[in-house]
């Protein structure tokens, strides 16, 4: 099978995010980027499924910039992807998910399609959860979001979707787009040998005419400041006072 995994460099979830003084983006200073935590789990599953085929890591529209995107493609190659494709983006900040989906669709079609396409369920930066379903729509493919399991048989797949309060099993024809939840694959840590081997794997470029943005960020602001909280007291004896405050002051507790 030929499998494409769409990846995105995102700030480490432990990073302190500050709005840049230009008000248009985050301040990249001191922010460490990583491969999206769901992306790496999708790669693990893709590598397990590929059989005699190949797994392609595809990155487009990364706000972290081109060098960072290529580093993260290398990470993907170290995790077992066979080759990388990079879509250069002249204006990657706060990219419209629909424009990203169009660029990814173009790159996938440009390399002759795929039997299966994975995206992480969300990027942990803009958290749109939009690119995967949009990509499927543009390619006229079925899409299962929040997948926690997949088995492929011939030209179709059985996919488990972790929905709210239920797990669905769907049968989809291939090709299909799958967005992976945490349980889609295991967290992997590449060995030194694999990291070195990744350096020799090819990364191709696919250039696109970026579509006009349908979604634009007019400005970023820090979250609203919160007044400092109140320590009600110490130990269990503070509980009645706390519940009283929740009922009368915060009006957050209705029993």
């Amino acid at each position, binding site marked *: 099978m030929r499998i494409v995994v769409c990846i995105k460099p995102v700030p480490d979830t432990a990073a302190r995010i500050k709005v840049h003084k230009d008000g248009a983006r985050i301040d990249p200073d001191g922010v460490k980027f990583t491969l999206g935590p769901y992306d790496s789990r999708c790669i693990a599953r893709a590598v397990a499924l590929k059989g005699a085929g190949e797994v392609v890591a595809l990155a487009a529209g990364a706000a972290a910039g081109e060098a960072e995107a290529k580093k993260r493609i290398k990470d993907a190659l170290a995790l077992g992807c066979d080759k990388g494709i990079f879509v250069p983006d002249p204006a990657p900040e706060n990219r419209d998910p629909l424009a990203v989906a169009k660029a990814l669709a173009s790159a996938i079609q440009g390399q002759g399609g795929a039997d299966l396409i994975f995206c992480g369920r969300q990027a942990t930066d803009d958290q749109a*959860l*939009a690119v995967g379903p949009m990509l499927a729509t543009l390619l006229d493919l079925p899409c299962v979001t929040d997948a926690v399991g997949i088995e492929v048989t011939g030209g179709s797949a059985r996919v488990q979707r972790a929905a709210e309060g239920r797990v669905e099993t*769907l049968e989809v024809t291939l090709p299909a787009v799958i967005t992976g939840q*945490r349980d889609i694959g295991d967290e992997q840590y590449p060995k030194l040998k694999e990291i070195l081997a990744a350096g020799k794997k090819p990364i191709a470029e696919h250039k696109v005419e970026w579509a006009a*943005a349908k979604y634009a960020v007019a400005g970023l*602001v820090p979250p609203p400041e919160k007044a400092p*909280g109140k320590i009600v007291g110490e130990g269990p004896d503070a509980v009645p006072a706390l519940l009283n405050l929740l009922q009368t002051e915060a009006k957050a*507790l209705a029993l």
Partner: protein
Amino acid sequence: MASKVLVIAEFRGGKFKKGALECVAAASRLAPALGGGDVTALVIGGADAKAAAASLGKQGATRVLAACADWLAEFNGDAYARVAADVVRAEQPALVLVAATLDGKDVAPRVAARLDVGYAPDVTKLAVEGGKLAIARPLYAGKAYANVTLAGAPAVVSVRPNTFALLEAPGADAPVADVALAFGAGDLKSKVVAVEAAKTDKVDLTEAEVIVSGGRGLKGPEHFVLLEALAAELGATVGASRAVVDAGWRPHHDQVGQTGKTVSPNLYFAVGISGAIQHLAGMATSKCIVAVNKDKDAPIFKVADYGIVGDLFDVVPRMTDEVKKLKK
């Protein structure tokens, strides 16, 4: 430009999702500023969804369109998005609203892609200012907020549950009209073959009004019964920090945080959770935060509205007892 608002109203488990009702209520408040016109709700589902459709009038829908058939009874993003996009094309609203539940966030981007219009996901602000939509949404799980503009008509927006209030004076039922479906189950490339309901009647974390979350301070999975007892008294849903999910104490779908669920309840209890950035990112938009932690310097106290410094193994059982007393 057409001025009506269309809400894709999610119906699941025998009732409309609270987030869907909030969207209808928000639509009815926004409609006058958008030039008036209908607030139309679209219901996609089976016979039970159709039977409940008229009730959306109570939250301000002036008419309801029902795209209901047996083969649409189970959620299927491919099918729902196609139905919704067909209806939006025919209705030409200025604004399409969906609750930003998992299913809503599955359908909305596909509808936007089908129509080639802008989509704003999981917004926490939606207003009309100077005749234009003013939209804001958290990025980096709430570490920053973006003011967003959308191009193309309609604007497609998913709204974070618990952002908008329901109407205080609910209205009457609305008239329901059937939607003629342009395709059938046989035209789909995906089908739902099984659905296994979770063994709980708890409200989903993303829609819960009260959440009791536990972290490493619980010391082991067996101690979550303390939180479950408190949650049962409060009608709350139990959540968890990443540390305890990674340790295998709780399932991933209970995880609150940047790599888990982003929640916005009225009341959030963080019990034995130190307050790592990635956790704070998932619950900072909660309206009231209570922290219980034995470390008075734990970062969680910086975001908490109220805190108790103490051993959770003493504080939580006492809280359960006191809540019980108050309920009497």
